[in-house]
Each structure stands twice: as C-alpha cells, then as structure tokens.
C-alpha cells in the first residue's frame, strides 16, 4: 500500500508550482515585445509538462517508458528541424511568391509580386 499522506502533499506542491508557472506565462508578454516571447513561453510550458509527467503521471523511475518517450519526442523534434530550419528557413524565391498575401489571378496572369509582410 502506498503512503497516502505524503503523496497527497506532493500533489499539492506540484499544483502550486504549476499555478505559479501559469502566472508567469501570463506576465511574460508584458516584458517582451509582441510575439517575441514564444520561445520563453514554450520553455515554461516544457517545465510545466515535465512536472506533470514526472509527478502526476508517475514517470519518475520508469526507465523503459522514459526512453521510449524521449525517442518519440526526438522524432517530433527532427520533423520540426527538418521542415522549419532546413526547408522553410531557406524558402526560395520567397519575395517573389505571393504566398503571404492574397492575389487574384484570373485569365492571363499578371505577375504582381507582393513583398513579404514582416
């Protein structure tokens, strides 16, 4: 049988931690410039996720499952890196493409080039 009392204390402690981090999530944007804080936000989210995984989901001490989980995450990471860093970041002819803004092409093409919005 498990130690109910101490486990419960752990649950509450983690909850407090999570709530604090949520508060930080809320506060952060007022420090950064609009849209620039995403990495920081995601970093906080990762800490929160780690807390949930380790304590709420009892991953602590589960070697096999952790290894499998890390493997799965690595794969997602690789998808991100390849698609975003390797392909999109090197998006060719970006400035000539009208992918970032609507343009009405009908009939004979008029090649309007719309600069990318930043």
């Amino acid at each position: 049988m498990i130690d109910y009392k101490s486990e419960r204390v752990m649950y509450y402690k983690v909850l407090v931690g999570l709530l604090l981090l949520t508060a930080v999530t809320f506060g952060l944007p007022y420090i950064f410039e609009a849209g620039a804080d995403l990495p920081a936000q995601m970093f906080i989210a990762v800490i929160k996720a780690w807390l949930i995984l380790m304590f709420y989901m009892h991953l602590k001490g589960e070697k096999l499952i952790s290894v499998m989980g890390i493997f799965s995450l690595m794969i997602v990471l690789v998808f991100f890196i390849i698609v975003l860093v390797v392909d999109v970041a090197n998006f060719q002819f970006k400035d000539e493409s009208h992918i970032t803004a609507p343009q009405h092409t009908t009939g004979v093409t008029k090649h309007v080039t719309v600069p990318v919005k930043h």
Partner: protein
Amino acid sequence: MSKSYFDETHCAIGHPKSTFMQWMLTVDHKRIGLMYAAVMFTFFFIAVSTALLMRFELFAPGQQFIDGDTFNQAFTLHGVIMIFLFIVPGIPAVFGNIVMPLMIGAKDVSFPRLNWFTFWLYIFGSAIAIASLFTDAGFADTGWTFYAPYSLNTGTNVIFTLVAAFVLGMASILTGLNFLVTIHRLRAPGMTFFKMPLFVWGIYATAWIQLLATPVVGITLILAIMEKYFGIGIFDPSKGGDPVLFEHLFWIYSHPAVYLMILPAFGIMSEIIPVFSRREIFGYRTIALSSASIAGIGYLVWGHHLYTSGMADIAKTVFSLLTFFVAIPTGIKFYDWIATMYKGKIVLSTPMLWAMGTIITFAIGGLTGVTIAMIGVDIHLQDTYYTVAHFHYAMLGGVVFLFFAGMHYWFPLVTGKMYDEPKAKIAFYMQFVGFNLLWFPMFIAGFLGMPRRYFDYLPEFQIYHQFSFFGALLFVAGLVFMFWVFYKGWTKGEKVGPNPWHATTLEWHMPTSPPPLENHSKVPYVDFDPYEYHHGEPVVKFDYETMRRID
C-alpha cells in the same frame, strides 16, 4: 484426436454456439490473422482488377475503354487499396498475428480483445473506402497521395476516402501498439532480444513505425477533412495555405510506411534463408540491428519525394544524403543472406525459390530507388514510369513476393497440410517471369519521359506498354494458379506433422499440427539461439508435453 485452433476458440463477448459467430468474435491471434488474410485477399482482387483495367486502357495510345476520369479513379482505387488496405496492414496483420506470438512462446498477444477490435476497425475502414464507390460523387480521383489542393477542389468523394484512410491508420497504430507490448512483455523466459527470431525483429521495428509515423498522416488527413468540410484554410493556397506543407506531412508518414512494409518482409526472408540452407544465419546481430536502423533512418528521408516540389535546394541535398544511408543497412542484410547460403545445404523448395526470386527483384527495386535518390537524376525521373517501376519492384517484387514466400513457408503450420510442390514451383516461375516482363519495360519508358498517371500517351511508348500488358496477363495467370494450388492443398493436401521443413524456431515446435488453441502446451525456457543447426539438423528438440529440451 487433439483439438486445434480450428475446433475451439475464445470469444470477445460471451461464447456463441454457431461456428460463424465464433469466428466473428474470436480473440485468438491465429484466427484473427487468418481472417485478415481472407479479407485482404478479397480487396486484393478488386485492386488487381483495377490494375488490369489500367493495363488494358494503356495497351495503345488514345482512349480505349474508359475515359480520363475513370482512369484517374482507377489508379486511385488501386493505390489506396494496395497501400492502405493491403500492404500496410499486410504482413504484420497476417503473419505478425499468426506466427509472432508462437515464435516468442506467448499464449496470445498482450491485448487479445484489442486485437479483435482492431480487426473490426480495419473492416470498418475498408467498408468506408469501398462505400464511396457507390455514392453519387464516386470514388476519389486524387491518387493515393491526396495532394492538396487537388484533393480539396475535386468533386469526387474524397472525404470518404480520407476518413477510411484515417480509420485504417488507427487500426494500424493499434496493431503496432499491441505487438510492441507483446514483444516487450510476453517473450518466453530466457529469450532476450538477441535470441528472438529475426521475423520478430522485423515486426518490432515495424511496430515502432506504425506507432510513431501513422499519427502524422492521421492528423494530416483530419486537417484535410476539416478543410474540405468546414472550408477553413490550412493547405489551400487560395486561403493562404501551402501545398508543399501538405506534401511534407504526407510523406513524413508515407515514406516510413514503405519501410513498415518491407521490414517484416525482410523478416520472412531471414527465416526462410537459414532454414533452407540448413545452417545458422550469418551475422544475426547485424541483420537485427539493420532492421532497427532502417526504421530509424527511414524517418528522416521523406523529402526524397519532394525533389521537384519547390522545396529549398538545401533541404533536397540533406534528404538526398540521408536517403543513401538507408541503402547501407539494406545492403548488409542482403550480403548476410548470401553469406548464409555459402557452404550450406540448399534445399530449393518453393519458399526458398520465392526468397531467391525476391533477392533478384528487390535488388532491382532497391537499386533503382538509389537512382532516384540522386537529386539531379530524380528531377528528370520524378513522376515518370521509372518511379512507378521502382516502387512496383520494391512493393510487388519485394513485399508481396516475400508475402507469398511466407504463405508457402507457413502454409503447413497454419493448415497442417502440404500443397503440391511441383505445381507451386510452376506458379512461381510464371509470376517471376510475368512480373519482370510487366515492370522492366517501364524503367525504359520512364527514362524516356513517360509521365505517370497518364491515361493516354504518345505513340513512342506504345511498345513498352504492350510488353507490360502481356507481362501482366502472365503474372495474373500465375497468381490465380498459385491460389488454386493453395486451395487444393488446403482441401486435399497431404497431412504433415508440426515441423515439415526441419526448422528451428519455436512456432514449429507445437504439440499438434495445426496448433492447438493456446499454443505451446507449456511455455518453453529459451536458452538457445533461433537458428541452431548442427550438420544440417536442428539442434534443439523438445518434449512437446512439457516443452523441456531433450537434445
């Protein structure tokens, strides 16, 4: 007379009296495997018929029997059935179910009821796919790749097909999950990972791909459905979407999927080669680990389908480089198999003939894959018949051929009977010759610039298509003959004992033939390697009552 799994079974819900309901509700992994085979086989004939229809249409330039739209639906139907209904579930669902638990000495898979549910999920998905044939809008005409924005614009019933592919994907995920847990938890005591038969390694690697690649295509299809149904913007360029992103997501799954198809097939090869060479396999560990590394590297190379899509040149280079790395472990496997034959005692039974035939055809399929992995060359060959020939050599000449090899190899295990060997060999030769005649000319046509998914073509290519047509006829004739041989074998064949091939792995050490409901009478202790032969005879022998070693 002892009872086999044909005589009794466990059911998912209650225990119905009628034999039919017992089959419908069975949770026995062997029966489920057989039911998969029966269903796939039925779909299979639909796909083969559409293939023949295409071949008839392509017999000469100009319109022959069907119009362009019908042709487009035909190759979509052919591709969708072949990929999602047949070859992706194929070997894992049939042989993974039937023999994998036997090989590791388990009584069943880890979640037998989930296995039953998965089977019905598969049937449900297939039913949706087939149902769209009968709706007004008709079967999708997008090709099996569902490229946006075409799939978002076309008037045909793409939603059904997308939903079907999603449901089938779920079934595939659940199969993989079940096998992964089974392999981790239910191996007989003593059987470490490096004592597992190589087929189990193939299934293991495949299960990971099923688990970790299928969700990506699943969600991609959901996004496409959302977009088509609710009109939101995700991939449609008229709403700002980028079709190339769709291609990325599609191939993130669909490239690993090709290794998902081939790895269990390689597993079958690794079973057959040592048994019919009567000696231990050469380089067990390298074969096992190469399965794992093919699965791993296979995740990173999807971009070789996007060389002409408008992707960044740097990405093309990276993908090309990575793609070549897949060929290395595959090559290692091939050389290991050949080395296994060295100074063995080679028995040319039908399974061995199929295996050797596949070494030839898959080598062609794989090496032409290497051709189109070269970026500059693929820019010329992409979406031509060269690619089509490549993947038929890999899928038909690799996976399906090995599937057939497995069918011959495990036929006595499953049925307890033997088919007619000489006739089966004739069927092999017909199909081998027919296959090469069917697809080899297509390499040339493709190299000369015959694009794929063309229902009409320029007269220069006629000669190749005509060769191909006759090859297809010969091939299908051999196919029908082979199934006839199986049918005869099952109904009239001679009864055989549990181990007709002198094999060593556990599935051949059953108390009865065909096997009883709960597999081995006792779980054996495994303190031996999977392919131990001494002077051409299996080393390990069991007392089938207690499953203790008696050698």
